[in-house]
């Protein structure tokens, strides 16, 4: 009470309460644009317990209602337990596989597309910019449909016929928006390097290619890691999209399992609740870690 009477701006011990903005703790700036990390920030800023409690409330209230029917809660969870090895071993592992390959292809393509955006050759620069904007601003599901429905399911190379599994096509489809977003991450990081570095490198007679690969990129590598991890988490959570196209990942297999168990509505919440939980358990630590790295790299410059 009356604490404000004793409050001297900038001098009172709790600097958070200072009304002089210059005295507030420095909020580190991340590489790329701040909105790249909006999701991680939101996710990581909530404490694990709060999120868990919300999750439990949401899942158990309807369960309590449903428990009054004949198919009991315990039976539903027993069913889930029986199907768990299948749902995780064949389903979630497939989600992870898709996320790994997508990130791999998306990153490699994105780095080159991002470098294309800073090319000295104007047509290359404009083309790279166009591709980046196109795939950054398209719905992922639409891209997935286009790739899934237009790509052949097998390729003939001479006498050999190589079949392309559905999940591989899904990887290509998801790689496109990842590529475009990584391209922006690379462009942003490269442009964050002071021009003096370019000039020093030029005046030492480094070629442009040497300047980029030996001087500029090694410096912004660290700065690219947090947004890159953020995109990985977003991608992983988007992988269930491919269930709409029949790829056998966790959501597809959960539905199959429920069908095999006579489609009891009581099964919906345990099964999908489990899917939610396993994604959360995988992505939340990544989000925390991203934030930690971001803080560490923003201080050191």
């Amino acid at each position, binding site marked *: 009470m009356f604490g404000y009477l004793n409050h001297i701006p900038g001098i009172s011990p709790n600097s958070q309460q200072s009304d002089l903005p210059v005295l507030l703790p420095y909020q580190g700036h991340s590489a790329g644009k701040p909105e790249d990390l909006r999701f991680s920030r939101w996710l990581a800023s909530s404490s694990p317990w709060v999120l868990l409690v919300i999750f439990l409330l949401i899942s158990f209230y309807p369960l309590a209602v449903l428990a009054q029917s004949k198919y009991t809660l315990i039976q539903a969870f027993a069913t889930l337990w029986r199907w768990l090895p299948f749902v995780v071993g064949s389903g979630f592992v497939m989600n992870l596989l898709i996320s790994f390959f997508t990130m791999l292809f998306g990153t490699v393509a994105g780095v080159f597309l991002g470098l294309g955006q800073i090319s000295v050759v104007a047509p290359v620069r404009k083309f790279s910019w166009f591709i980046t904007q196109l795939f950054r601003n398209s719905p992922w599901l639409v891209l997935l449909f286009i790739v899934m429905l237009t790509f052949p399911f097998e390729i003939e190379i001479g006498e050999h016929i190589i079949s392309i599994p559905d999940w591989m096509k899904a990887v290509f489809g998801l790689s496109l928006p990842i590529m475009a977003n990584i391209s922006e991450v690379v462009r942003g990081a490269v442009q964050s390097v*002071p021009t*003096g*570095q370019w*000039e*020093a*490198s*030029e*005046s*030492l*007679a*480094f*070629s442009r290619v*040497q300047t980029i690969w*030996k*001087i500029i990129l*090694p*410096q912004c590598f660290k700065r690219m890691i947090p947004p890159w991890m953020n995109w990985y988490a977003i991608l992983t959570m988007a992988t269930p999209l491919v269930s709409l196209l029949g790829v056998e990942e966790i959501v597809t297999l959960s539905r199959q399992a429920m069908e095999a168990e006579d489609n009891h509505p009581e099964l919906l919440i345990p099964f999908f609740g489990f899917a939610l939980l396993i994604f959360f358990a995988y992505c939340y630590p990544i989000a925390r870690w991203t934030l930690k790295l971001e803080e560490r790299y923003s201080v*050191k410059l």
Partner: protein
Amino acid sequence: MTTNNWTPEQPIVSLNNVYKSFGELEVLKGISFDVMKGEVICIIGPSGSGKSTLIRCINALNDINSGSIKVHGLEVNDSNLNKLELRKNVGMVFQQYNLFPHKTALENIMMAPELVLKEPKGDVLVKAQALIRKVRLEDKQNNYPAELSGGQQQRVAIARSLAMNPDVMLFDEVTAALDPETVKEVLVTIKELAAEGMTCILVTHEMGFARELADHIYFTDRGIIVEHGPPATFFKEAKDPRTKEFLSQIL
């Protein structure tokens, strides 16, 4: 250098009627001067008089609009200029040091000879160690730039340029960002360099240093050379009112 129509009797750097503008803003309005091999030239003048632009034009960091800049017989104002060939022979040191922060002091020095001149790694290491001794930082050779003081960073930057065995060194206000105590250690390094016969072109505000070391001083204002001469006459017998005013303010 590939073009060897240069002989020691000719100026090693020769500017003739150089014009440069950034859009509407005319920065250099007909600059001409010659620098002979082994000479030390100081360019002084008020801020915004085009000194830094002038020095940056010599190694083609800035293009010029008209006129001619010849370095070691190589025409800089030529669209077919091989900039890499030019820059191998012209070292440059910046106000903000611009060391590569992800490399140690020694690695900073070794990078260009290794990657640009393709010299064998063993030779480069020997050369780099000799250079770091020359700037008296052998105990800091494995430190990263962030761990060095401004003056130390600037001396590493000088050693880094020297590792390319340049014919000419350009110094762009290299002491302007340093605190007064460390200015001296950088100036001593440059002085030693000049004593060894290195051709140096300096943009500087260090009048004492210019008076002591320069063979010739050029005073620029608003894009032209207002007055020039050897230090003895320049400081005592300045004729132009602008030079007089500048000197009276700074000395």
